[in-house]
């Protein structure tokens, strides 16, 4: 058996694991559950040899071992299928599956014929229909994931770690996967299965280990635990009973206001399948959900930065047809990214230039635009919204993260867009700055601006949003408004436990 005890791991100031433990017995499928940031991915990565733990011990069959690298992990009989995939996109299926375990022929050369045979057998077993000489990057995401699992299984592990592998898979592929996992179980392999899909736990798993805030809070057999209890351990909240939910049918849509945005059956391959949403003028719409359920893609599609592959979007009475952010900005859309460093801040440019960036972006290229104009424009914005930031001529990199975020918000508010999109804007922002940002957004909405804000912290959305759309696997699993804005309902919807998605059915 495999066991980890008292595991501790920090990333700078963030504590990912705080004394967590995990056991895996032979011939057992164990679900490892937890919400975002609970530490389950870190745990998996420690077992896979990606990270070394700061404290705690790992034992295999009662002997304490150290797993310092991916190779060491494999030598202990551990194989991992990563959520973010470990396949090399520019190599063929054949080479990827045989990487590191190529069959040797004469003179230590790779025996290609035997390799082809082995890979073909593996593809057949997994029911993967693809050319083994095709490059990984040319394959569908679901096929890539199946190959990732096949690669892990081909290493004949004693412990198989599956990190959220079903998310991109289709229904029949999931069935194949389940069949193989059960076969491995019969062969005495330990399997640790990470998932957000509650239905899969009861269908497949024998045991559950639940983590919260870097600690292991519950271990149980799936026979003796129910969904509500699992959710309680994951979140510290009991989900509300289904019956009560049906009663409250409040749509929460404001009356007497104009619709600004009408999204119908929106699809963005491969992350968003079917999203319906209405946003009225002057409304603040919240977008909630676990990480990677299609929220960033949805927001970017409204900005013309992600390609819409299905459905329709009406914006201000017309069909939304932004081919790039240039069109969107000219059409009155603003975008605040939570990924400040990569997508929002110009670190070496001055604070005033950063604030004026939206103004700089739109208009005639040859137009006269002095430093004085930029300074006046930005100081106007700073005064109007009482954004306290350093001297306007200092570079943006001189500011703290919270102030940099205010800077980016000021940039867009000063443009007075009709629609302001914010993608997790308060990530890593201190409480005080966060409150100020909320105040600013509320003022803007009161002035008629429509605000769509996505956040990974749902307390934030309760405070600020009129209505909350909850995303689960590329769909809206629930819309919460008025009295239905409760922790319990939100948690349930984030786990996909609502009428439409209760069965956790993938496409």
């Amino acid at each position: 058996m495999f066991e980890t005890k008292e595991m501790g791991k920090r990333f700078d100031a963030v504590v990912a694991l705080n004394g967590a433990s995990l056991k895996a017995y032979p011939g057992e499928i164990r679900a490892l559950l937890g919400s975002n940031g609970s530490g389950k991915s870190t745990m998996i990565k420690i077992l896979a040899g990606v990270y070394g733990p700061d404290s705690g011990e790992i034992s295999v069959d009662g002997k304490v071992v150290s797993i310092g690298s991916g190779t060491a992990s494999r030598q202990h009989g551990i194989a991992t299928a990563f959520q973010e995939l470990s396949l090399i996109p520019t190599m063929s299926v054949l080479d990827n599956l045989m990487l590191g375990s190529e069959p040797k022929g004469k003179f230590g050369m790779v025996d290609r014929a035997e390799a082809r045979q082995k890979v073909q057998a593996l593809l057949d077993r997994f029911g993967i229909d693809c050319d083994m000489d095709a490059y990984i990057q040319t394959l569908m995401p679901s096929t890539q994931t199946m190959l990732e699992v096949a690669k892990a299984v081909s290493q004949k592990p004693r412990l198989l770690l599956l990190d959220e592998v079903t998310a991109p898979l289709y229904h029949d592929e999931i069935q194949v996967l389940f069949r193989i996992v059960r076969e491995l179980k019969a062969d005495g392999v330990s399997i640790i299965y990470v998932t957000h899909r509650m239905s899969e736990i009861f269908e497949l798993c024998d045991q559950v280990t639940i983590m919260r805030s870097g600690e292991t809070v519950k271990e149980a057999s799936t026979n003796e635990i129910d969904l509500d209890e699992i959710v309680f351990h994951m979140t510290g909240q009991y989900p509300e009973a289904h019956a009560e939910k049906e009663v409250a049918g409040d749509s929460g849509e404001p009356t007497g206001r104009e619709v600004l945005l009408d999204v119908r059956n929106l699809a963005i391959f491969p992350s968003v399948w079917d999203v319906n949403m209405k946003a009225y003028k002057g409304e603040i719409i919240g977008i909630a959900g676990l990480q990677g359920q299609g929220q960033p893609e949805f927001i970017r599609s409204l900005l013309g930065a992600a390609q819409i592959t299905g459905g329709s979007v009406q914006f201000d009475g017309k069909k939304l047809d932004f081919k790039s952010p240039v069109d969107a900005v000219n059409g009155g859309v603003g975008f605040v990214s939570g990924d400040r460093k990569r997508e929002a801040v110009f670190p070496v440019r001055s604070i005033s230039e950063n604030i004026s960036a939206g103004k700089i972006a739109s208009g005639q290229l040859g137009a006269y635009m002095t430093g004085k104009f930029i300074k006046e424009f930005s100081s106007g914005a700073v005064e109007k919204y009482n954004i306290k930031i350093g001297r306007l001529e200092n570079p943006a990199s001189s500011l703290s993260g919270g102030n940099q975020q205010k800077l980016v918000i000021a940039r867009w508010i000063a443009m007075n867009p009709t629609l302001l999109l914010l993608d997790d804007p308060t990530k890593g922002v201190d409480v005080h700055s966060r409150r100020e940002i909320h105040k600013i957004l509320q003022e803007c909405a009161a002035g008629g601006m429509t605000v769509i804000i996505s956040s990974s912290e749902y307390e934030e959305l309760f405070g600020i949003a009129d209505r909350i759309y909850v995303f689960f696997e590329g769909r809206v699993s629930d819309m919460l408004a008025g009295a239905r804005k409760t922790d319990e309902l939100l948690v349930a919807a984030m786990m996909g436990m609502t009428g439409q998605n209760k069965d956790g059915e993938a496409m």
Partner: protein
Amino acid sequence: MHNSAVLRPITNLFGKVSGFANRNPTRMAIILGLGLYAFTVFQVPGAFSVQAISTLFMMTLLLSFASAGQTMVLIGGGMDFTVGAVMSVAAMITTSIMRGEDGRFLQAFAVCMLLGAAVGFINGVCTTKVGLPALVVTLAIGNVVTRMSYLVTAGTPVGRVGPAFASSVIYRHFGFIPSLALYALILFPLVFYILYRSRFGRQLYLVGNNPEAARLCGINVNKIKTISYMISGMLSAFTGMLGVGMLQASRNQMFDAYAYQSLIAVVVGGTSFAGGVGTYGGTIAGSMVMVMLNNMLTALNLSQRVREITLGLVLVLILVMYNRRKGVRQ
């Protein structure tokens, strides 16, 4: 090396100088340029004359024109190695169209501008749409331009510039102010306007600093970058015309060295390889440094090989000094 007691004062000094150079690149470049000249005069007193200073002034102006577009391209996060090739070809076009007659200046001008814009456009498209590194793309395209010029001229360029055009470049007012300075009266304000007073210039700095953020802000990043290459191409072509006006007859690859010289002048002037930072004033000062350096190596009467080796070593030293600042994009 840092532990050595002998070397420590030297590394400390280097660090201080380097720090100053990064904080005040323009001032540092002026000090460096004047220092080089003072050293030259100290070694070779004959290098100090009204005539010599006038010539140095002229060379500085010419290099600063050639480096103007390079400055913009670097600020936008790119690099333009076609400067030299475009200058050389523009020079050949100018002489072969003018053939000693000033009346054909406008024709030559129009063709050169078209050439510069076309090369710049190709540079822009290849770096932005195809996504190849600017260094590789522009080196390759510069090469193509050079080879094509051989094809067209069959190795021997013909013609001369018109006499009036030539004197508009080389005539010395009051005996020492080169007439070329009059072109600076048009070109400098134009470049300053584009960089500091136009929306294009503002966008260029943002694009160079963080292209992804610029794109999400609604800036057409590819367009801005392509325009910067086109401006660089046209300015290079015009500088090539002025250059041949100075020398009157053209030959193949006559200005090729300007590709490197302009790049170094721009970097010495404080423009960052990482993009988003830089001034044209700095580039003008950097051009002076390059001219003074070349002048020193010539005045010292070193053999061609020693000159080239020295030039190379000095340039490495300068680049090390100016690149101690960490890259902007982590």
